[in-house]
Every structure is written in structure tokens, then in C-alpha cells.
């Protein structure tokens, strides 16, 4: 396997040095078989729709990405240390909505959520708690019972 951390040693050292607080014990939730689940994507790539306000430094808010209007997305994440050419070729490499739609059509998953969300992954996770709670409420309204969290 190719190990990115072996190639970009300086970046790897930076990431290893970042604070990663341990989580309190949280029981994991059970649910229906995958073929009956409603799945939403949460991206930490700082995705916004073209025309929406880009994420800024320390941005702790979220953006809404409707399933039916996800054609024009841009990456406004703060970091310059990840590849963006893949996204230029195919947005599914960061935001795999087409794949989920195909999986729903094939019966692999039950359905795709009406709305997906993005936050800015460079923000301290502790500062994202309020947004996460708001998103959770919206996901419940959308009857989502499975989140696919996609990093960048």
C-alpha cells in the first residue's frame, strides 16, 4: 500500500502533532439492515455551493447541500495540503452522491437523504459541536439513520 505519511514527512509530522482529544464513551447505535437505511453524507472538505459564502478561517458553521441541487460545488477548505485535482475531475472522489444514488437504485441502501452537509475540517472539532447538534436535528427530520462521514 502507498502510505501518504511516508511520502510527505513534514505534513505527517504536523498532523501527528495536532491535538486529538480522546472521546468519552458513547454506546454505538444499532439500526436496520443497510438495504433499509437512509444515508446522508457529511463532508469536512468545506464544500459550498457556488454562490454560497466560502468558509473562512475558524469557520464553525455548516453548509447545506440538497441532493437535487448538488451539481455546482466548490472546495473552500482552509488547507492547501491536500489534492484538489481529483475533485476537479470528479466530485464523487470527495462527495460521492452519484454513488449513493446508484446504490439506492440497486437496493444496496434504502434511500438517499434529501440534504447533506459540509463543515470545515480545519476548525477545532470542539468548536463544531453546535453545528453538529443542529445538523443532527435536521438529519432526524429527514429520517436519516446512517451518516457517511467523509474527510479530505
Amino acid at each position, binding site marked *: 500500500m502507498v502510505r501518504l505519511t511516508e511520502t510527505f514527512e513534514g505534513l505527517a509530522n504536523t*498532523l501527528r502533532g495536532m491535538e486529538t482529544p480522546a472521546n468519552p464513551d*458513547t454506546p454505538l447505535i444499532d439500526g436496520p439492515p443497510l438495504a433499509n437505511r437512509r444515508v446522508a453524507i457529511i463532508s469536512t472538505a468545506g464544500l459550498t455551493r457556488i454562490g454560497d459564502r466560502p468558509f473562512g478561517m475558524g469557520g464553525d458553521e455548516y453548509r447545506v447541500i440538497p441532493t437535487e441541487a448538488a451539481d455546482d460545488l466548490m472546495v473552500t477548505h482552509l488547507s492547501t495540503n491536500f489534492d484538489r485535482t481529483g475533485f476537479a475531475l470528479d466530485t464523487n*472522489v470527495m462527495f460521492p452522491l452519484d454513488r449513493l444514488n446508484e*446504490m439506492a437504485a440497486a437496493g444496496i441502501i434504502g434511500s438517499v437523504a434529501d440534504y447533506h452537509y459540509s463543515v470545515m475540517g480545519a476548525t477545532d472539532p470542539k468548536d463544531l459541536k453546535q453545528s453538529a447538534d443542529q445538523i443532527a436535528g435536521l438529519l432526524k427530520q429527514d429520517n436519516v439513520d446512517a451518516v457517511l462521514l467523509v474527510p479530505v
Partner: protein
Amino acid sequence: MLGYYFEAAGIPTTQISLVREHSVMIKPPRALWVSFELGRPLGIPNDAPFQTRVIEAALSLLDRTDGPVLEDYPEDVPASIATSEEDGWACPISLPSPPKAVDQDSDILDEIEFLKSWHDLAADRRGGTTLRSSRVTTEDAARFLAAWARGETPDSPVEGFSTVDMLRLASEDLKAYYAEAATAQPAHNGRDATSVQISDWFWGETQGGNLLLKLASVCKQSDDRLIKIIGSALIVPYHQSHRQAVS
């Protein structure tokens, strides 16, 4: 942490992880570690079967309630971390001139114009573009950045965007323009250029890359803390930080 926030709110969560060390430390509820490069959590652009296998593997972890779960995805991508020298890739676009000092706008504007047809081809194939985070044209973004690279300090041309915002967003738009133009090219030896190859081309062979190298060095000297941060960390990626601008 986000995974735990959603799980604690009652929504089962699984995630893809790109940096295994982080997942080991954070212990998210359910995580599938992949060996792919940062920026490509689903592995290979335009490879639906590959991406689907990754998603299925991540979603299959939802059956697990004995967390925290950390599984290693067994499938790798083809050698995606290659350099321009290792396999002899050269960008098919022959730029009109090598990088020059940022004394005037004409060099960068000429290059942007030269790349326009390739960029438009890429946009047609993709059905759109990822540009416009700065809300100005690529040419105006380049003019703004070139002025700052020459030591001038124009204000942001966009109402509501600070100068710091514009420096970052205009830089990203310029990079995206070149990346989209470069990815319109026919595949080399049966496969597309890698992210590293495109990055080496941009930062080593283009006016655009040279402009941003110069900009970063100027911003690093700023008395403004945020502009200094922009120059130090948010324009030039770490793996290209060894380069110096042509002056």
C-alpha cells in the same frame, strides 16, 4: 469527534479515515482507514466501481455496535504518488514562456489566456467548474495577486470579503484554473496525470505557480498576523515549499 457528536445525538455514523494515526488517537465510532492520498477519500476519480466498493466497506461497519471500530481497507490505488521524473510525464501543454519575475501583469494574463481553451474543454466535460470562490474572474484574481506579489497592497475588490479572504480564495481559484486546464489533457501512457505531477508542473513550470511562490514570500514578511499566516501556510502546499520564486 464529529462521528461521536452524531452518534451521541442518536444517528449511527461511519466514516472514512485518511490518517490512521488520528483515528487511533480519536477512536471514532466506526472508521474505515484507506491508504489514499489526502483530497481523494474515495480513491480514484471517475472510477465508480472502485468508489462504490469503498463506500460499501464503510457502510458495512454500521452493523457493528462493539465500538470503537477501526478497519483497514485492503484495496490500494495504482501508484498515485509518482513524480514527473519517475515516469517521464510531461504536461502536453507547451506554455509560451518559462516562469518570469512578477514585474507586470501581462505574463500571467497571457498564460491564463493561453490555457483558456483547455480550461473551457475541462469545464464542458465536467459540466461546470470549481472556480469562483473569490467571486471574481480568473484574470482579476491574477491581477489582485500580482499586485500583492509586487509589494502593492490593494484592498479586496469584493464587498464582504476581507483582504485576507481574497488573498486565500483568489489563490485557490488560480490553482483550480490551472488544475482544471491540466486535467483536460489526454491521458499519458494510458492513465491520467497524478496529482503530484500536476502539482509539480504548476509550481515548477508556470507563471501562475511562480506568482503564488512570490506572493507567499511577500505575505510572510507582512506585519499583519493573518496575512503572515496566509503566506506561511495557506498558499504553497507543504510538499512544494522547497521552491523559490523566479525573481
